[in-house]
């Protein structure tokens, strides 16, 4: 790595103009990228990460204006180049891939033709087209597109999301830019695919020396991938440092709070940090430090004077606390600020009761399953989708069970069938000792609740929060004296009472989700299914939700089934973890046991691929899962995982393994788990 920067951004200001208002999206941004370096950009939603990454290519939307600054790339200031000169730089010197792989390829053109267009854009006239074909096939093959030569003639919709992101990367590979900007390239993907893409990015750097600017709100993947990290807040760089130093020793109060918000196994038994309030509006920024309203360390000077970026070893911090001339305001009895950091709050996770609350036996849900003899004959050519296929599961009262697996493994369907929001195709559900068939529908509905994945979609838009919260009482005809007040419900989920008069669209994502939880709690249910309770939320909003769920479990002994692909969340608060693959549970057991000794190759991979901020935790080997999850319409014969399992043998292809015990309360469905286990140790 040479020290001369490839890209050097200095004093960049960008504003958005909207309906006469000016939004200060970026202010005084400095950023350098050296050859072959991977720089991470993190921060909450709306802090300007995407604006920054688009500025690096001068690809901003029409209502954005670059007010000031310089952007030096290979000795030229991009901000002062003409359109045509700029176009020549884009793609060949600096390229970009985007978050939504489903939409970043033109749907009506074959991928070969799109790659050809990119290639042609940077060739002198008269270059032979045959050269392109060979290079494109090579690029596609190297990002793992099978049958690359034939697939060039396919249209984007014939590829999965993960595949499309590979195609974008292959296009970059073809042009060999010296910098690749990747704005949340894996946010729409599963852990297994995310790991594959991250691996590709690492290879890009190793084989071609490409420098990468990796933008993400996921601190874990940034910690895994990046050499250096830039933290953004309200359009400013508030901290910059080497990745290891930054995550091990966050200096800026904002960075520290972000890191402390992230759940992980090592944080089990501690309350997660939360950051109160929100990113201030960019059209009416307060004077002084933009983080002052949310900062636990704020002093009076913070509201008066905006801190500059104070150089530190490895980077810089935008905080008065680190300015030797101002630091005395923070010295308490001569101690340095770091030492003053609040000790984390210890919490306990309440142990579950002995008796089972909900039990499912041999549960199946097949979509498009034919009914009757004739129907079965007719549909012989098109088998049903086996969304869940033979699930046995017992959840004890007061237990938190985490359910993980790739998308398409049937997690949400299982949750909904258990709550009878969808009818099961076959199987039996027992709730509180009674067969579900014998339990009156209404009573069951009152005692179980679901927290839906999309909080806004699950709240009726024309009702005020107060009415939404009391609706369950009206539906179930609960007597007034048994009702909890709206204020009490809001307080329970940590929302202020003045929210009661708002409509759902006036709430932030985190608030809407809390209203969803409050609504679920109104009837004092015994059992709650939470589907991706933190998906799409900023780390701080997510940690607040997790703290809340953990408190509820502790206080009322609530039983939770948490469906998520965020394994860190399970590691943080679940008693047990169940891993699903193609409609079946492949491993289930106490969280500690499964994390210490995962027995199934699939769970072992999932756990190893989970991004970690913790430097110690990051030292493990990453077990990539090749390929993608097959269609649940035609699950592979024998062990369903055999098409992707590195341990698969002849037996796996023909004989389906059943769950067998691998320890106390720890079951696994793999023929060779003992074998694999011994190899490991």
């Amino acid at each position, binding site marked *: 790595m040479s020290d001369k920067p490839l890209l050097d951004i200095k004093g960049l200001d960008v504003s958005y103009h909207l309906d006469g208002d000016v939004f200060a999206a970026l202010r005084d941004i400095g950023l350098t990228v050296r050859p072959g370096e991977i720089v991470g950009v993190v921060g909450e939603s709306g802090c300007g990460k995407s604006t920054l990454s688009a500025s690096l*290519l001068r*690809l901003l939307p029409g209502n954005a204006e670059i007010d000031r600054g310089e952007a030096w790339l290979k000795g030229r200031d991009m901000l002062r180049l003409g*359109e045509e000169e700029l*176009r*020549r*730089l*884009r*793609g*060949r010197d600096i*390229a*970009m*891939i*985007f978050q*939504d792989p489903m*939409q*970043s*390829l*033109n*749907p*009506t*053109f074959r991928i070969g033709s*799109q790659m050809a*267009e*990119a290639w042609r*854009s*940077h060739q002198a006239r008269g270059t032979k087209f045959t050269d392109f074909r060979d290079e494109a096939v090579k690029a596609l093959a190297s990002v793992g597109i099978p049958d690359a030569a034939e697939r060039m003639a396919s*249209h984007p*919709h*014939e590829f999965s999301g993960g595949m499309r992101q590979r195609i*974008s990367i292959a*296009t*970059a590979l073809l*042009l060999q830019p010296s910098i690749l*900007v990747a704005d949340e390239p894996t946010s729409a993907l599963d852990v297994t695919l995310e790991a594959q893409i991250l691996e590709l990015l690492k290879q890009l750097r190793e084989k071609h020396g490409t420098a990468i600017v990796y933008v993400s709100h996921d601190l874990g993947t940034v910690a895994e991938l990046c050499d250096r990290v830039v933290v953004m807040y309200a359009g400013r760089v508030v901290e910059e440092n080497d990745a290891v130093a930054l995550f091990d020793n966050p200096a800026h109060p904002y960075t520290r709070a972000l890191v402390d918000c992230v759940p992980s196994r090592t944080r089990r038994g501690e309350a997660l940090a939360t950051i109160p309030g929100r990113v201030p509006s960019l059209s009416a920024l307060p004077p002084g430090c933009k983080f002052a309203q949310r900062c636990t360390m704020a002093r009076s000077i913070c509201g008066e004077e905006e801190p500059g970026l104070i150089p530190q070893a490895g980077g810089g911090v935008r905080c008065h606390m680190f300015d030797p001339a101002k630091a005395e305001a923070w010295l308490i009895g001569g101690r340095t600020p770091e030492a003053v950091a609040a000790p984390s709050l210890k919490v306990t996770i309440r142990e579950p009761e002995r008796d089972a609350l909900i039990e499912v036996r041999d549960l199946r849900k097949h979509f*498009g399953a034919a009914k009757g003899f004739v129907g079965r004959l007719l549909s012989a050519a*098109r088998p049903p989708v086996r969304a869940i296929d033979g699930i046995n599961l017992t959840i004890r009262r007061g237990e938190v069970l985490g359910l993980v697996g790739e998308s398409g493994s049937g997690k949400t369907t299982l949750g909904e069938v258990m709550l009878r929001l969808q009818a099961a195709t076959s199987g039996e559900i027992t709730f509180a000792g009674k067969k579900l068939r014998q339990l009156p529908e209404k009573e069951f509905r009152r005692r179980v609740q679901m927290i839906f994945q999309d909080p806004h979609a699950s709240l009726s838009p024309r009702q005020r929060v107060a009415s939404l919260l009391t609706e369950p009482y009206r539906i179930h005809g609960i007597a007034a004296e048994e009702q909890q007040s709206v204020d009490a419900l809001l307080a329970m989920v940590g929302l202020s009472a003045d929210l009661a008069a708002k409509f759902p669209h006036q709430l932030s994502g985190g608030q809407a989700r809390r209203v969803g939880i409050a609504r679920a709690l109104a009837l004092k249910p015994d059992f709650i299914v939470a589907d991706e309770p933190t998906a799409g939320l900023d780390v701080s909003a997510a940690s607040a939700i997790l703290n809340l769920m953990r408190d509820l479990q502790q206080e009322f002994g609530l039983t939770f089934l948490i469906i998520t692909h965020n394994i860190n969340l399970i590691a943080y608060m679940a008693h047990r973890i169940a891993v699903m693959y193609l409609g079946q549970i492949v491993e289930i057991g106490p969280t500690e046991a499964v994390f210490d000794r995962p027995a199934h190759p699939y769970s072992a991979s999932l756990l190893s691929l989970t991004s970690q901020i913790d430097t110690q935790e990051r030292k493990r080997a990453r077990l990539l899962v090749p390929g993608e999850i097959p269609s649940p319409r035609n699950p592979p014969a024998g062990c369903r995982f055999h098409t992707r399992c590195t341990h698969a043998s002849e037996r796996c292809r023909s004989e389906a393994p059943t769950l067998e015990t691998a320890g106390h309360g720890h079951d696994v469905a793999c023929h060779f788990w003992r074998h694999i286990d011994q190899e490991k140790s």
Partner: protein
Amino acid sequence: MAGYLLKRLGGAVVVLFLTALLLAAAVHLVPGDPARAVLGAHATPELIAQIRAKMGLDKPVAVQLWDFFSGLLHGDLGTDFVGGVPVTTLIGEALPDTLALAVASMILAVAGGVPLGIAVARRPGGILDRLTHGLSMIFVSAPVYVTSLILLLIFAVKLRYLPAMGAGQFSDPVNYLSRLILPATALALFWWGYLPRILRATMLEVLSAPYIRSARAFGFRENVIFYRYALRNAVLPIIAIFGLMVGYSLTGTVFAETIFGRSGLGTLALSAIDQRNWPVIRGVVFTYALFFICANILADLSYRVLDPRVRLSEEFETGV
């Protein structure tokens, strides 16, 4: 694809059948006895009965329908009440003039509307955009008979640039074409207002799509992005409009033919309605329906061929 085609053809047959049914019913619902209309007010009851029998009006509706459809299969649409000429002959004579007008108007519509739309989308908010915005309002809301009359008055009567009345003869192509210009323009005006607006909207939408931004990030030439990438996707919805366009042109020809005194299906239909000449009415309406349905199927098919995504969702639909 084959399955889809079959489905559409089946649908077309059903529509045609319903059209025939409606027309048969109309004979009885529309006031005025067709036989009396043909013979005049002073015909004797015997004569009327005789004519009625000749027209087949004394038979039950089901039989009438059967006769109609069995005739149709042999390419026979019945005989004109008044002149005794086979309806197919009448339609055969009138059709070319109408088709020439409809096709000419559609060519004008596309040749004017699409480039204009592209030019407008190239510089949204520019002079051309603002100019066409106002004009298009007028063009879209003015009915064909108004535009026809105005064009006729200005270019034929006042300025005498072009002939005013009649369709002319194929044998004199220059004269024939010069007589097409005004009525075809009258029909195309609507599309000169409509197509640029639609194209502008779809173009701007496509140009803000994430894949366009991706293309820019890879340094695609701006011309490639605009004319190859965006245009193709923006034109797709326009192809879907093609069916509508055929329908508009065909109904529009009725007004244009009347006002410009052209021979054609429209004039034929109007005189037939005047005379309660049911076989002719039925024949003409049927021809209209046939063209309309074919145009829609054609538009749909080309949409499918051009947009790979539709092909895919189609597979899903027929699969489940």
